[in-house]
């Protein structure tokens, strides 16, 4: 088969120049065309869509939908991988709700997710506005503040060990220099959770970039006309900046919440859930039950509680968004 520009002989006088290599062999193509109804543009569009979506359909079935269904079924069984699963009905769920450790893990997860997301949003918004209004070198600040976001996950956690470890950590060393004896942070039951929440400021860059982009796209005329009406700094922020940024804030609230509820590596590397379960968020609880105690059924049941709550919280945030999110163009997707 020729690959360069070719004049297709069958087209005769019209002599269409084909500048592409056909997606599939010509003989196969003829067969497919016959089967799917003609060589018109609509038919070709449907075929191409079908072909191009195939990887996603396969991946969705094998790596997402299949495991999702399997996990639901497993949650009604007792399964240790080596022996066949035993059907135990609601046993896992009954055990789960009777386990104070499970309820404790949920409490920590909600604190970590709620306070953590709020904290991230405030820090990101403040940083974005500071950078936006910076008179000098704002490009430099943008790059600098974004940079640790690329170190999220394991690198963030390893670097944060150097910051929050009580005996040699950066925080306590600095406190020491000004004469304050710092708390035990990640080695203390009382301070470990605040430490793993506080450390999240470091990777605030992604949210900051989204806010910066959104702030930059607010039309300047709005501020000018509001100023003519006598509005001052705080009012401008409250009545123009916040409403205009609210769609992006909504996206960030949802993404932040989902990611926080699933937190694992950042907490695990710093504390492994300790000391004394004081940072035992649900991600760690599931890991321990499923992969250390090899209780796949119970782990599945717990992870379904996580999935359900994630869904409910997302829907609640979306439902509430009608009250506080302002869409200028009236479209969302």
């Amino acid at each position: 088969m020729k690959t360069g520009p070719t004049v297709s002989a069958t087209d005769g006088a019209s002599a269409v120049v084909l500048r592409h290599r056909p997606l599939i062999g010509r003989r196969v193509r003829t067969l497919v065309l016959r089967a799917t109804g003609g060589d018109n543009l609509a038919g070709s569009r449907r075929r191409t869509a079908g072909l191009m979506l195939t990887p996603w359909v396969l991946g969705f079935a094998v790596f997402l939908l299949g495991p999702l269904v399997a996990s639901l079924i497993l949650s009604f069984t007792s399964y240790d991988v080596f022996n066949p699963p035993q059907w135990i009905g609601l046993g896992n769920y009954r055990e789960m709700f009777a386990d104070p450790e499970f309820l404790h893990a949920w409490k920590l997860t909600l604190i970590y997710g709620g306070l953590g997301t709020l904290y991230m949003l405030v820090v990101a918004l403040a940083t974005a506005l500071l950078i936006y209004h910076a008179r000098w070198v704002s490009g430099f600040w943008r790059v600098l503040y974004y940079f640790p976001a690329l170190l999220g996950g394991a690198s963030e956690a390893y670097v944060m060990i150097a910051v929050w470890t009580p005996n040699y950590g950066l925080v306590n060393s600095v406190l020491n220099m000004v004469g304050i004896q710092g708390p035990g942070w990640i080695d203390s039951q009382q301070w470990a959770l605040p430490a793993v929440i506080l450390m999240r400021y470091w990777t605030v860059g992604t949210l900051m970039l989204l806010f910066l982009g959104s702030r930059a796209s607010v039309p300047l005329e709005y501020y000018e006309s509001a100023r003519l009406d006598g509005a001052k700094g705080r009012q401008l922020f409250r009545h123009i900046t916040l409403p205009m940024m609210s769609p992006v804030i909504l996206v960030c609230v949802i993404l932040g919440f989902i990611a926080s509820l699933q937190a694992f590596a950042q907490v695990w590397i710093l504390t492994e859930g300790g000391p004394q379960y004081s940072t035992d968020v649900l991600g760690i609880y599931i890991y321990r039950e499923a992969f250390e105690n090899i209780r796949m059924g119970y782990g599945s049941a717990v992870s379904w509680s996580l999935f359900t709550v994630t869904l409910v919280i997302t829907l609640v945030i979306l439902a509430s968004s009608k009250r506080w999110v302002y869409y200028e163009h009236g479209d969302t997707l």
Partner: protein
Amino acid sequence: VTVAVRSPSSEVPVVRSRPAASRRGLRSRLTRPVLGQIALILGGLTIVGPLLYVISVALRSPGDYFAQPYGLIPRHPTIVNFRSFFAVTDVGRLMLNSIIICAVASVGTVVSSAVVAYPLARLRFRGSTLLTVLVLSTMMLPPQVLLIPQYILFVKLHWVDTFLPLTIPAWFATNGFLVFFLRQSFRGIPREMEEAVLVDGGNYWCAFRRVIVPMSRTPLMIVLILQTVATYNDFFAPSIYLHSPNNLTMPLGIELAAQTASGMENAPVIMAGTLIYVIPLVLFFLLVQKWLVRGVQFSGAVKG
């Protein structure tokens, strides 16, 4: 949907001070920008500080380490901790494993996400909006829900302790967020460009290859960057799928070093490992940061 994004530096006139203040002269007009810069410098220290401190701990000799008070700068810098880290782990191997997994998974993600995003963006068919919502909703699935059955699946396939569980799923557009991100960016490309190809007798695949892909270099690059970094920093999946010392990735290697040489005095060794782990990321960031800055303007356009 397209909103022009002004660069923040051109925004200076917006924050001009009130007329009363400007009459008072240069000093009061400079107060706010200077305060802003001071806040940014202080914040910047909390961003850069931790990394510099990792270097400082990694360079400490045992004498420095036990010195009181614990200073911010080591008195007798030494590279002995790096030697210890090299002694307990096979760093070359760990790094090679990390890089192989990153490369295969990221290329797979870019290719498959782009291929899947195009029909969702452009080829209207029955249920295409529903499918987009479905793609987007896969983002909400906690990895923990999928992990247990996926683990069992990979055990049955004998894929555990190979790189396959960490790389193959990436070739099937399994990251809903990235697919959606590309779909949104493809929609921003003027239709006329594709129609020119179709009129010339090309098919949709040709339009995708010749128009959409070349015009989407920035979003495709962003997907590549995000996936590379996420894979490099992944701790959860590798810790479940990789067991033998020859197969571990960098973060697992540091964990292993922490367990092998436990005790308080191994902290400088762990920090030496952390530094070796983070340096490629920092270089990568310096290499690609221009794409990410373009991405700001892009995300402004999409979300606007």
